[in-house]
């Protein structure tokens, strides 16, 4: 599937996504956590699969063994922002979403 088939939905101004501070967006009732890590944008499910609470946008962002991760604020598991895989338990992962900055807006990609 090429990116042409994605429909890009603007969710906020680019300057509303501060470096390393996640925010939460709602897209078709999906809660999505957005991050800006050194200019690189990431989007993953906001719901922590270990607790079913929508908290991942509120975790601390950093790197563990060269992977960019967010730590769940509840029980501190780390999720790779690029792949969504949990570092402590690779059988658990969260969905990732296409995200980009265009014309000063942060946009999430949605399949048509």
């Amino acid at each position: 599937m090429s990116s042409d088939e994605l429909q890009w939905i603007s969710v906020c101004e680019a300057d509303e996504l501060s470096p390393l501070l996640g925010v939460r967006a709602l897209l078709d009732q999906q809660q999505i956590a957005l991050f800006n890590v050194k200019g690189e944008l990431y989007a993953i499910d906001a719901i922590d699969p270990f607790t079913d609470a929508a908290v991942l946008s509120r975790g601390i962002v950093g790197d563990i063994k060269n992977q960019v991760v967010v730590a769940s604020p509840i029980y501190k598991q780390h999720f790779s922002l690029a792949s969504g895989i949990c570092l402590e338990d690779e059988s658990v992962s969260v969905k990732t979403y296409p995200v980009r900055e265009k014309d000063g807006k942060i946009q999430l990609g949605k399949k048509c």
Partner: protein
Amino acid sequence: MSSEKIVVVGNGMVGHKLIDNLIQHEEADQFELITFSEEPRLAYDRVQLSSYFAGASAEDLMMTSESYYQENGVNYILNDKVIEVKVAENKVITASGREESYDKLVLATGSFPFVPPIPGKDQDHCLVYRTIEDLEAMTASAKESKIGVVVGGGLLGLEAANALKNLGLEVHVVEFAPRLMAVQLDEGGGELLRKKITDLGVSIHTSKNTKEIVAGESSRYRMNFADGEYLETDMVLFSAGIRPQDELARQCGLQMGERGGIVINNYCQTSVDNIYAVGECALWDGKIYGLVAPGYTMAKVAVSHISGGDQEFKGADMSTKLKLLGVDVASIGDAQGRTPGCLSFVYQDGVNEVYKRIIISEDKTRLLGAVLVGEVEAYGTLQQMCVNEMDLPENPEALIIPSIDGDEGAGGVGVDALPDSAHICTCHDVTKGQICSAVQDGASTIGDIKASTRAGTGCGGCVALATQVMNCELSKLGVEVNTDICEHFAHTRQEIYHIVRVEKIKTFDELLEKHGKGMGCDICKPTIGSILASCWNDYVLKEEHAALQDTNDYFMANMQKNGTYSIVPRIAAGEITPEKLIVLGQVAKEYKLYTKITGGQRIDLFGAQQHELPLIWKELIDAGFETGHAYGKSVRTVKSCVGSTWCRYGVLDSVGMAIHIEDRYKGLRSPHKLKFAVSGCTRECAEAQSKDIGVIATENGWSLYVCGNGGMKPRHADLFASGLDDQMLITLIDRILMFYIRTADRLQRTSVWMDNLDGGLEYLKDVVIRDSLKVCSELESDMAHIVSTYQCEWKTTVEDPDKLKRFRTFVNSNEKDNTVVFVEERKQIRPANKDELVRFVESAEPELV
């Protein structure tokens, strides 16, 4: 094999130890155990008996419990004395007429205090010092007495003198011999001990032979001595040594020593094969051992023989180290130099009142004994050298001459030189080899060593030595304990703190660039955020600090399991006006929050979503509340009782002091949370002794307790200083807190921090009270800076529209978080559990279709 029935007569320390060894034995199920005690309770710690007067209860002294015996199938009969043994029938008979047969019989009947045959010794207020009941009698007698005399200047006698002194009596010690502790000390040591004890206000009368105790003139009794002198007193406490309790053995015809004691062989068997004797009632090689450690060894030997083993008792080291009336005293081996041809070195320091003497063999190769009074640091080394017959260093005098700074006490013997068989812990019979193998199996802290080998858990005297052995073995194994806080910084928290201060680093990025690598993580970021806050006290949500904070610090509320937050406004010292109480109720009602009173005398409001936090705080701030910092690793609350303002018993204004303290330290960021309390009198209703900082009012001013905590591993706080006025109290707290913040590890509570300080409580006192590091003025000015730059983070936040944007639940929608679902319980909300959530979704689905 059918089970073997073992009857143990006497349940003192040694009797219990024997039973415990049988319970722990791999063939424990082969034994049927019965024990008899004439006392009303099971074994308790007689060695620690004097702590009864320091506030320990009979309960605290217990070494076992009825439930432990029940769980392990041990039959125990209290308050019933065995009065007869029918050797031919293998049976015992008790005073109440109970008969019990045995396969093996163990006599652990102990000893009784020797009371010299002095006319008048059997009157009221003439007591002995041996059992908990004796202590109760002493306490009762002391209430009706002003003067107390202890007959006997040995180890137990001096301990008893201390007890009488603590009970508030004028105390005299009367000793038959020409010096104190005649068994353990030589003349020089005895003299110094006498001087020190006299200085403490206890009168010592040596070479006194009491002739009779008659009615007194100014006091209840008069003791007349053989030399014509006399002493008036209200009570007499006999502590003139012990005698083996061997009446039962004598009656059944076992072989006895000339002056008493049940004769045993190397297997602890008496003259009848299936009867054993252990502890103070047993006579081995013509000797009675009046210490607990040899008794424990006998118990072990007897258990070994009963179960077919071949361990032997080969005598025991009678070295002792103890504190008598606050004076350190130690005696090792041949302390009096009785070995023919022996030589000795003496070190005497009249200024600091220290006496040390070592006795060495004629050929100058072996240490035979030592006496230490006033300073006993060398005890561990000397005792090991003596017991293990190690080679003496070239200059043996160096063993007792204090090392000059920079000079590594030339004669000091490293633990490395000890053989594996060296006994480190004599209470639990733990050797150096056992400690080393525990380290090889992964133990790396003294706590691990205590748990796996039990070394150091008896009298505690060997902890320092055991630690040295452990450290030595650790470094031999090449174990380097990694204290880096995470992969991004190769430093401890303490090192990072110093770097931040010295280089005046103000941001995480600056620190990472200069001293770290990578991007940081959820370990180093909050730690460094806290250090930056402790040092510079910036607003935590400043752009450059915001991403360092845990969600609790970032949203300034406590995240709960469903992603909502709880809010705790500050209610300093638990004092709140009715008006403010009503506001809390109104806000909780308006935002449908669950309310609960916390353990710290505050009110917690649960169930707020992130976008509601600023709205709620706006209302709270308008009503005069400020943040309670319940979310931070910082000062939480100062709990208090109402104190002298209301309470009939209150001595000082505890609420006033608690409010003052809470206001002073509120918001202070630290390595871990800090909890304080102030009690208005020694009834201690505020439970200050379970806090990091506990303050208790006394008639002489405030007492300060430090480094206690509740929680998972409760720890009583230690008394740090007493008789303090308001200002001195605050000064000491300033210094302690700042020193903790500077030097503690990440997430290390004050208790663990202090335990890990080399020198513990005493070291902390040196630094904080005596300013040994010359840092006190710096600590105080650091604290003054933090106190003067305090701001309520929530007030700063609600006044800044930019910051408020961060609290939006969604950047692109005003909808609420649909994962947050509450149900009602006891008329309040609570988060729905998983089952309830599933039901909720199922019942909602048809509407979506």
